[in-house]
Structures are given as structure tokens and as C-alpha cells.
């Protein structure tokens, strides 16, 4: 007897198809081309963030500070241009800032051995507070003339496809190549699978962990720039929103186990589609914001519970006090 078994990504994809079908049938306007474009545009930024989170989660970590990496460096670009600096200088400053941020995160986690959830929670608050206190004059950093031309990163179309979706695709390809084709990518999987074994076999596990967080911050910054370009401003209060839960939702629902070492870009795409459909459907149904959060929270909880059954924590390699 051959048992039929489905992998998580197949199940999630089936759920996505079902949800899509149900919404298409029952929700007027869901299947319209306009709505489809909005849906995809809305999830593009989420998808890019999902890629950043995926790199970290595959290496058995988590990065709660992604939203800060999204909001603060891109806000810095807008603010600097507003203050009269050139766009190039502003971008350079932002990238430098992001790399520093990633390095600090990575150092705290790899070398100071602070648990990743905890370290990124604190650094995220730190950077958001820094932006609020020292970098930005207003909560929403406005677009200025110096930014002219930059909005093409998030608006318009390339060969008929909205740019933000193209950006998501580009990011997907880059991350997929990194994870599947380079030695560093293999190291990340190895560390996520069993950090001690990885270290024993001679993988430079600490530098690789630092690399994960630098990459995650850079991708987060990229997502922020795409987002700023598409809405022509940078609402830095986005840090207080629940966006980070959506990102975790994308990764966990897509089938990248929180215990690390599994999954890839395909899982992020599937997770993004599912969440995008869900959010879009709830918006059309006019579910209030708090209600949406409630539903997302419950779905995330269900996903995490399922994840814990499908990818049980390895008690041998789980650290004591690994919270």
C-alpha cells in the first residue's frame, strides 16, 4: 500500500487555491484585473520581507527588527534628500546604516550569544527609537523633488507587469541563487540544520550568522525603498504596526520550519500568495483592522501549532533556554 502524503507547501498551496476559488466565486470584484494587480502590489513588499526573514529562519534564527530595517534606512534616504543631500549620497548613507545595523544584530547573536528573538526585538526598538528621536522630523517622511525618478522602483510597469512585482521577482531570483547555488547558502542550511555539527565540521558559523542578518537587513532596506517609491512617502510609524507578524506568517505558512534548515524561496512565494489573498479578501469583506489582526493572529497560531507537529524541535540540538 502506498500512502499518499502531502508536504506542507502542497497543503498550503491547496488551501490558497481553495481560498482563491471561494473568494472568486463569492466576492464580487475579487477576480477583476484591477483587484488582482492591487493584491499583487500589496503583497510584493511583504514578499520581499518574507525573503529576508526566510534567510534568517533557515539559519535557525528570527529577525524581529526587519520592520525597523524597512522603515528607518528608507526614511533616512527621504529625509536626507529633503534636507538637500544628493540621492546618491543619501542611498549610500542608508546602505551603510543598514549594513551596520545588520552587523550589530549579527554580532549580538553570533558572538555575544544573545538569543536572536531577544536581540532583534531590542535592536528593532533601538533603531525605531533612534529614528523617532534623532533622524526624522515628522512621523511620515515626505517625498521631495530630489527623489524624482526614484519612484519608478515602485510604480509603473515593466513589460506590462507592475514594477513592485518585478522587484519581488528579482529579489526571489537573487535569494534563490544565493541559497541554492553558493557555498554560503549551503552553510546557512547546515547551520540551521544543526549548529553544533556545522561548527564541528569547520564551517565558519559565526561569520555566516552575521552574514544572514546583514543580508536580512539589506533586503529589508530594499523592501522599504520599494515601499517608499510606491506610496511616495515613508510612514515610519509602520514600526508600530503588525507587519512583522504578517512576515512571520508568510514564512511559517509557506513551510519554512522555525527550527531551521528547511524550505526555500518557493515556500516564501506560496506563503505570500496565501496571505495576500487572505488580506485582500478581508479588505473586500470590510473586516475592521482589529478584526483582521485577530484573524491573522489565530491563523498564525494555528500555523505555529501545525509547524510544531510537522517539524518538532530537535531536543538534542535545541539549546537549554532556547526560548
Amino acid at each position: 500500500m502506498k500512502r499518499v502524503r502531502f508536504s506542507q507547501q502542497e497543503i498550503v498551496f491547496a488551501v490558497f487555491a481553495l481560498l482563491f476559488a471561494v473568494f472568486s466565486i463569492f466576492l464580487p470584484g475579487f477576480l477583476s484585473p484591477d483587484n488582482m494587480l492591487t493584491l499583487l502590489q500589496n503583497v510584493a513588499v511583504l514578499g520581499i520581507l518574507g525573503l529576508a526573514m526566510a534567510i534568517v529562519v533557515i539559519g535557525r534564527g528570527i529577525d524581529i527588527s526587519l520592520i525597523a530595517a524597512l522603515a528607518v534606512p528608507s526614511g533616512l534616504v527621504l529625509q536626507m534628500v529633503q534636507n538637500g543631500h544628493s540621492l546618491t549620497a543619501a542611498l549610500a548613507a542608508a546602505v551603510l546604516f543598514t549594513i551596520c545595523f545588520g552587523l550589530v544584530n549579527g554580532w549580538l547573536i553570533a558572538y555575544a550569544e544573545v538569543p536572536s528573538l531577544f536581540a532583534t526585538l531590542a535592536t528593532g526598538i533601538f533603531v525605531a527609537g533612534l529614528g523617532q528621536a534623532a533622524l526624522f522630523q515628522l512621523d511620515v517622511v515626505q517625498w521631495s523633488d530630489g527623489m524624482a525618478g526614484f519612484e519608478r522602483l515602485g510604480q509603473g510597469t515593466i513589460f506590462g507587469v507592475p514594477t513592485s512585482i518585478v522587484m519581488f521577482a528579482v529579489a526571489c531570483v537573487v535569494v534563490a541563487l544565493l541559497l541554492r547555488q553558493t557555498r554560503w547558502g549551503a552553510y546557512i542550511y547546515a547551520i540551521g540544520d544543526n549548529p553544533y555539527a556545522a561548527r564541528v565540521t569547520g564551517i565558519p558559523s559565526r561569520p555566516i550568522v552575521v552574514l544572514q542578518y546583514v543580508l536580512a537587513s539589506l533586503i529589508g532596506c530594499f523592501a522599504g525603498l520599494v515601499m517608499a517609491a510606491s506610496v511616495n512617502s515613508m510612514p515610519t510609524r509602520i514600526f508600530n504596526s503588525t507587519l512583522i507578524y504578517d512576515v512571520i506568517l508568510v514564512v511559517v505558512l509557506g513551510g519554512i520550519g522555525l527550527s531551521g534548515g528547511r524550505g526555500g524561496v518557493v515556500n516564501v512565494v506560496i506563503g505570500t500568495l496565501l496571505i495576500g489573498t487572505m488580506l485582500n479578501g478581508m479588505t473586500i469583506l470590510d473586516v475592521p483592522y482589529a478584526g483582521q489582526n485577530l484573524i491573522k493572529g489565530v491563523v498564525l497560531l494555528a500555523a505555529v501549532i501545525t509547524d510544531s507537529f510537522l517539524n518538532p524541535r530537535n531536543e538534542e540540538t535545541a539549546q537549554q533556554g532556547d526560548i
Partner: protein
Amino acid sequence: MRDALTRLRYRYWPDHLLGEILSKRWTETAIPVIVLILVAFALSRSIDHFLSPSSLADTARQAGEIGFIGLGMALVVIVGGIDLSVGSMFALTDFCALYTLDVLGWPVPAVIAATLICGALLGAVNGVLIGYLRLRAFITTLITLIIYRSAFDLLIQRHSNEIAAAFPDIPSWNFVGGGDLFGIPSVALVYLVIAVFGHIFMTRLRPGWHITAIGGSRRSAYNSGIPVRRTIALCYVASGVLTSLGALFFAARLGTVGGDIGVGLEVIVLTATVLGGITLGGGKGSVAKSLVGVLIVLLITNGLTTLNARGGINRVALATILLAAAMVDIRWQKNRARIISKVYVAPTYHELPPPPPTEIGEGGPFEQNDKLRDVTLIGLGRIEAPEDVILDRNDVLYAGSRHGDIMRFFPPDYERMEVFAHIGGQPLGMAFDRQDNLYVCIGGMGLYRITPDGTVEKATDETNRSLHSVNDDSRLRLADDLDITDDGLIFFSEATVRYEMDEWPIDGLEARGNGRIICYDTNKGTTHTALRGLKFPNGICVASDGQSILFAETFGCSIKRYWFAGPKKGAVEVVMDNLPGYPDNINLASDGNYWLALVGMRSPALDLAWKMPGFRRRMAKRVPVDEWLFPNINTGCVVKFNEQGKILESFWDLKGLNHPMITSMREHRGYLYLGGISNNRIGRYKLAGADPDFVQYDKRWGRRS
């Protein structure tokens, strides 16, 4: 001159205290307390009226409310988890209290009960998920944070106007919010009661121990039968209840439900918890640490608010403190043992004049000879580490062994060997009392008594705690040798109070007076310390005057006399000093003189190093232990000395074949029996011209029929 300065510095500066203080568990609480005092001092200088009663009362109210949540968080962190949902639970239970009071109009006791139950249920959700379903605490409570928060948002959208419209004026409710007793706010009183209970719970009650055990090692806790899942789940329930208690007081004080109640509260409480020194990952923490952490964080955030800092600065400050505290904590927990082992060894200045000669041809009483070449060997290869040997009135030979047994050999040929008693620790010095009970000093255990039929009983394992010591010196660490006076007082030496038995050479490296002589009164069953500050006191022998004992200070290279009775009671006098080796056991000889074993001989290198404490400290820090310069115990001898401290005769084993090192010797019926702590044999040496009927106890207490 420089030597004199070094001597003074090491004589009066207490180097050894640093390591002892660091190895105390209370240092981990002391550091946050010092931080708290510094913060309070700094803020009171920069803000007027910071320490005025009204300001303090206000702080106490806030501290009480956050303090409850801090206790809950502490509990959850100690059990090895984390609870991020406290902010949202706080908001929901605050809403619950105000809704039941203002809208439903319930009486105050019912409101309180409902709020607490609400908190318990919210906590139970976390508890079931984390305890029973074994989800990760961080991610799970992050999700419940968002779920509870959105539930709260939905609820206040519907009900905030009704609540805002009501102005309940109920005295008991107002008392909860703003009342005080003897000037202490109600919330602080309740906090105090719960904190005291919490302290007793965590330190004295079984469930509290279970919680700490699970946090320390979850798998070991499970293997030892602790209900791990239930205990973890209950900790989250407790966190919910404590949070709702905080929310209750908050609701009574302010009476409002705003959208941002409890937002970011989890970060404040978490910062407080980590800052107080409660280790992330579990197993360590206390109520006091939680309170101190809450106070520090509250003072800082209130201070920043008073100083009109921008909102972002508050966040930056909190995040910085959180990260710094977490990093310090994690590094400290990881490296604690290593740091302590590096600073614990604190050598001191110890000067000895050049030793008397021992070489052949130099003359003098210590001149080497080969007298011990002709000893008979007893139990060769069958006994290990007979530190002391003793014979009873029936000529049976007793010796300790490394395996924790007292072995005995039967006359006349001492071939038959049997285990007399099993003790479990390594037997060192031994002595018989008048009733033929064998008293034994056991390294690491204390003083034990073995009755003639082989029953092992504990005589004593603790003495009075001295006032000024940091290390708890009431327990006996290394009881070494003993003798019993005619009145039934047992004087025994404790070689060191700073090291365990296996680390005794390190005490020689320190060369500080870490040892003491303790007296156990067999008539009253009491123990007290007679002398302290001795350099590795070792052998003890009651002198023939019956009023004093002779004792050897191994690393002092001297023999001293201590009067425990008579006109010179309490006095200490040097009998011999500057011995060429390290003296060990002392015993009575048949001609009224004393036998003394030298366990090892001094070497010029160590003598010089003893005058250079800085050198030895560098060595202890930088060189691995097995390459340290230790006292030599590879060769030694037995000497006989008289009451005046004159050496009469010495016995060597030049080839080092049979008895290179000797820790004890016992004369019995014309023979000298030799033991050594690293030997696998006992030696029997025929003494020329000795009294062939000499039996130590017959001589002291009269022959028994």
C-alpha cells in the same frame, strides 16, 4: 625594603575575598542593587523633589502595578520561558475590571474576582500552548500578544464610551486605587504581601523548587519525576493572574480605557526582569531581583519623562539597557566559573629562612640515611592511600583507603585483610578513645566515629560560623588529623577552609593561614573552633603534660603547642620552626618523645616563589594547573623530636623504593608502622631498643584487662 612593602601589602590586603565574594550567589543580586542606588542618587541630584514623600508614593503606586507583572514575568523566565503577552493581558483585564464595574455594575469583590479569573484564563491559553503543546514561548506569546491586543481593540471600539461616561464613587474601589495605610499606598502593601509569599514560595516550598529545577534543566527535571508540563502551564497562569492584579490597581487608580494601555509594557517588564539579574533561559532568579529591576527601570523611565526627553529617546534608552543587561548576564553565566577560578587563587607572602641541611656529610639531625630500607611491607598492592595507620590494644592494624573504607589487618603477620567499615569519604587521621571507639577525620565529610562492632556514626560535621568570613566556614571541608584528650575533648585540624580535599596543593600555593583547629567535646556533643588562621594545620598529638596539644603546620614548616587547659590556657607557642620539609602527623613514641612525619621536603624554588606572591598569582592565571609550581611530596622522612623541640633522630629511605613519602607513623610494641597518602602499602619497621610492650593507649590510659 621592597620585601617589607610586599609583606605588608599581602598581610593586610584581603586578596582572597574577591574570589570568595564572586562565588557567592548573592553577588548576582548585589550588582543590580548597586545600580539601583546609583540611578536613584543620580536622579535625585538632577531632579528636584525626586525623593519627596508624594513623589515617592506616586512611584510606589506605579512600581506596585508594574511590580506584579514583573513577578509574573520573573516566574515565567525562571521556568525557562518568556511572556510577551503581558501588555495585552494588562489591557484586556483592565477593560474587564472597568466593564464589569461601570457597565455591568457588579459589586467590587465580584469585579476583583472576575478580573483575576479573566487574567487566569488568558494566562491559561499561553500555558496550554507552551506547557502542554510545547510551542516556543517567545513566538507563542508574541502571537497571543497580537490576538489579545486586537480583541481589546475590538472591545473598546464598542464599549469605551459607556466606560468613559460612568463615574463610580465606591469607597472600597477608591481605596484600591488611591488609599493608603500608615502612608503606604494600598498597592504597595498588597505587593509586599505577595512578594514575601513569593519569596517563601520560591525558596522554601516544593513547587517553587520544581520551577527552578525545570528552568535549570528541563530534561533532568522530567527525568526526576517533576510534572514539567503542568508546572510550566501553571506558571503562565500565574503570570496572567499577577498581570490582572496589576491591571486591577491600575483600573482603580485611573479608571480609563485608552487604546494604548499596556502597549510596550512587555518590553519595560522584560527589561526590568533582565536588569534585575533574572537569567534568560531560566533556572535563576528571585523576588528581590525582580523588585530591584522594576525599580531601576521605573526610575529611569520616570526620570526621562520628567526631564522632557522625546518619546524616541525613551525607547532607545530602554532598548540599550535591555541589550546591555542581557549581554552582561549571558556572558557572566557562561564565564562565571572560569572567572572565579581565575581570581579565586590568591597567593600571599610567606617567608622562610634557608632550611637546615639534609645532605649526607653535612651532619645535623636531618642527615639522610638508609634506615627505612629494611621495612617489611604490609598489604602491598592491596591497600590504597593509607594516610594514617593505627593499632588497637589487640594489635590489629587499621588504615584508611582511597575508596572510602577503613581496612584492617590481623596479627601476627598482617596478611589477612578485611573491610572494617565503609564510610564513603577518604579517611585521614584516626584515633581511639577510652571505649575503643575509632574516631576518624574524613576529608570532605567531617569527624566520624566507628564503634568496635563496625557501626559508623557521625560525630560532627560543622562548627561555629566565624563572623568575618565570606565563605561559609561552618561546614568542615578538610578535617585532617585528630587526638583525644584525657577528658574526652577531641582536637582535630581542618587543613583549609578555602579548598576541597582534591585541591589541597592549591592551598600550599596560596600559603595563607586558611586552616584551623577545632575542638569536639564528646561529653556535650558540641563543636567549636579553637584556633584559626593556621597554615595547613595537619598532625595533632596530645602532649605528655595532658594540658596541651602539639600540632604541625604543614606549609608553615613548624610545630606549635597549644594549651587547652592549665595555667597557660589558650596560649600558642612555637616548638620547632624552619623544618627542612612539610610536617604531617605527630604521634607518641615509647620513650616519651614524639614521632613526626615529613611528607615532602622543601625546595629552593618554592621557597623563593613563596616570597613572590605576584609571581604565583600570574602563574595561577596563565599556566594550566598541571604545570603549576606545587610543594614537592615525592620524598620525605620520619623524625623523632623531644618536648623541647630538638630533633633526635631521622629515618630515610634513600633509594625511595619502599616509602618515598610518609604521612604518618605509629609506634606499637617495638615496631614503627608507616603510612602514606599516595602509597599502596604499609611499612613495618623494627625499632632498635624500643620498648617491646609499648601500646599507645595502654600508656596513656592504663592497661585494660
